[in-house]
């Protein structure tokens, strides 16, 4: 089941690399096909090879991989993340340009409700990509150590509320 998922994803990636559709292949008199069948056949073979060699690629729960609800939430998450990212960028710009540089750096411990490895990884990367916060390490699967440019609260619950919960709401629905 997992291998089938890897096969499908690999084939899609291969098609994106090769782009087997080219309308220039149609002769002026209308004969010939725009689809490059040779590269599609080759893509099936390569995708089969990838599924054979990489048994743990992409996903651990292939049943949920192509669920449309998750993809919808992912599409919704991207603009939300972009908004937070840009807002944090402007905040850091303000801190840097401020004559007093009012920073108060420190490392806080936060907890997450996400259970899957992929979810924790996506959360850690979201935190790192947002300027001002940076994931240092993940311990026990659900405890993150985050370096914070301006520590607003050293308390575990409060820091979780500020840093994690805004991303967690979406990631919980994406990585079920």
């Amino acid at each position, binding site marked *: 089941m997992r291998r089938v998922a*890897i096969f499908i994803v690999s084939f899609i990636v291969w098609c994106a690399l090769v782009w087997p559709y080219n309308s220039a292949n149609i002769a002026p008199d209308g004969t010939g096909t725009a689809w490059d069948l040779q590269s599609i056949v080759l893509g099936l073979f390569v995708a089969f090879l990838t599924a054979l060699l990489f048994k743990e690629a*992409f996903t651990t729960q292939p049943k949920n991989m192509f669920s449309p609800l998750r993809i919808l939430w992912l599409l919704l998450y991207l603009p939300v993340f972009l908004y937070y990212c840009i807002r944090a960028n402007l905040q850091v710009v303000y801190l840097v340009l401020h004559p007093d540089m009012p920073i108060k750096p420190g490392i806080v411990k936060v907890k997450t409700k996400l259970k899957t*490895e992929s979810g924790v990884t996506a959360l850690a990367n979201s935190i790192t990509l947002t300027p001002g916060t940076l994931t240092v390490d993940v311990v026990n699967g659900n405890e993150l150590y985050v370096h914070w440019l301006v520590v607003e609260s050293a308390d575990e619950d409060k820091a979780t509320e500020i840093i994690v919960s805004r991303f967690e709401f979406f990631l919980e629905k994406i990585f079920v």
Partner: protein
Amino acid sequence: MTGMTVIVKTITRWTAALIFLYGAYLVLYGHLSVGGGFAGGIILACSYVIMILAYGGKETIHALPKAVAARLDSIGALAFLILASLGMFGGFFFSNWIRDIWPGQQFRVFSAGIIPLANIAIALKVCVSLFLIFFILASLRMTRKGDKIEFRSEEVD
């Protein structure tokens, strides 16, 4: 060679197959666009090297055992030599006799005779060679005892 944190491991799980696909694309389309056996083979090797770095040597050597890798290495080198020797059918070493029999269509994948096949053989050779060299050198440990510097391998097989 122990692994890294869960973040690095998960990202490696997501990207290793993508790197492999890109390497395969470079190899198989080496006669049509940028790439070829050497470039593609090195990138294929990278998909295993990234696994060595993230998961550690033991997990990776489970995915591609050393004995299998050594045999694949020899197979790649021999396949290239055999392809060249089979050129004797066309009259001389390295003659492109497949292209004389079946020329294929220009700018398509199945064309150019032995060149794509030679690309695949070289890619196999380069990929497995680099993987083995990286694995062996990465598992090497250097320690100092008094005035003497001592090398030993940490791998267990």
